[in-house]
């Protein structure tokens, strides 16, 4: 029973991860973060 519950939870986690990675709202902050790190490396 516990194993089944764990398997369901793991499937759910894999599902929302794949939805996050296909969400444009995720990639905009990621791109800005990379840009910020580049500016920081130039300034420092």
């Amino acid at each position, binding site marked *: 029973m516990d194993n089944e519950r764990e398997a369901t939870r793991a499937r*759910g986690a894999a599902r929302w991860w794949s*939805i996050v990675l296909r969400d444009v*709202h*995720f990639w905009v902050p990621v791109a800005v973060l990379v840009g910020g790190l580049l*500016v*920081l490396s130039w*300034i*420092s």
Partner: protein
Amino acid sequence: MACGITAGAWLGAAEAPTKLVTLGLSPVVISLSMVIGVFLARWTLPALIQGTSYVAADLREAPHLIVWAVLAGCLWAVANTLTIFAVRNVGLSIAFPLWNSNSLLGIIWGVLFFQELRGADWRRWVGVLGGALLMFGGATALALASAAQVASADATRGVAAALAAGVLWGTMYIPYRKAYLTGMSPLSFITFFTVGELGMMIILALTYSGGLSPLWAQLSGARHVLFWLLAGGFVWVVGDLFQQYAVKYAGITRGIPLSNTNQLWGLLWGVFVFDELRGSAHSVRMQVVGGSIVMAIGAGIIALSSVSRNEHVHWQKAAAREDERYGVDPEYTEARIAGENPDPTVRRRSWVDWLIVLIATGTIVGFALMARAPEISVRGQVAAVLLTATLALLVLVGGALWRTTRFN
């Protein structure tokens, strides 16, 4: 709206410790120390106010928001480090308004991604866009003032750092709005947000300090002032919490410009407590004060363009889209957006909560015992007046927020 104004006061006060950079501390060490204070506060306040069981219940409903919270924390850490470089190169009173251009970007993301301002009448559009243009004009005046006050190479880097911080913070509101459209409590969001913050900050500190040993040596050398930086981080979290509630209940387009009144508080701290503009030309002073006032007026106009009923309908559509995409229970979202708690049984404090509070308090007291007053010129009476006003806002607005939302 009151949360936004209180956020402004506390976020403004939190920037004062970054002035310690003039004592020769590395910006990365300052940022790391602030983030440690932030981390302690972001775990302590939720544990004290709602209990960790409440946070766990939120995550069971929307586990994907952990990713958004961690991502937002990473953006915050990089932005905060950039602001310290900016303060070092162009000063607090000039850098502050420049990074506050984040509200312009926040408005763009709010309109593009979350249907904010959809269904608003022309007066609200004019209010928000006109206010945004005023803020841009004020920021430009301040950038010109910075070029007149410091060496050109430093000014360019300082202005670039402040503007880049603005872009990072403006984009950080995407994860914020994402979480609050789903109904998550700000207290739950910040608990995971700070994991991203601390993780990213440790990576930056190790990279820019040249490894663990040099970083440790710098931290040990700075142990007498670390308490002030931790305290700055703690104060920042209080301001940020109010900002998060402002975003949740008033949206990005209103909540963020209001929080950005921290620019005025930053100006008060910079000019009257730290005497930053001493010795500068009259024209430069006028540019700084004028630019700041124009930016504040812009923020005020935006804030007065209150959210209409039509806009709320569009917000609900955006929330429904998020629920459908991530499989969140619509009843949970509806209750939480209304400031209600669908399951009051989860709000119980356990020994875990008290342990978190005990460890955080012990850490802060430990650093306080090692602390020495920073060797920097400060006008104590003005600082006391500003602190009193900031605390009064906390008590009044915090009480009102508790009565209306129970901090949901």
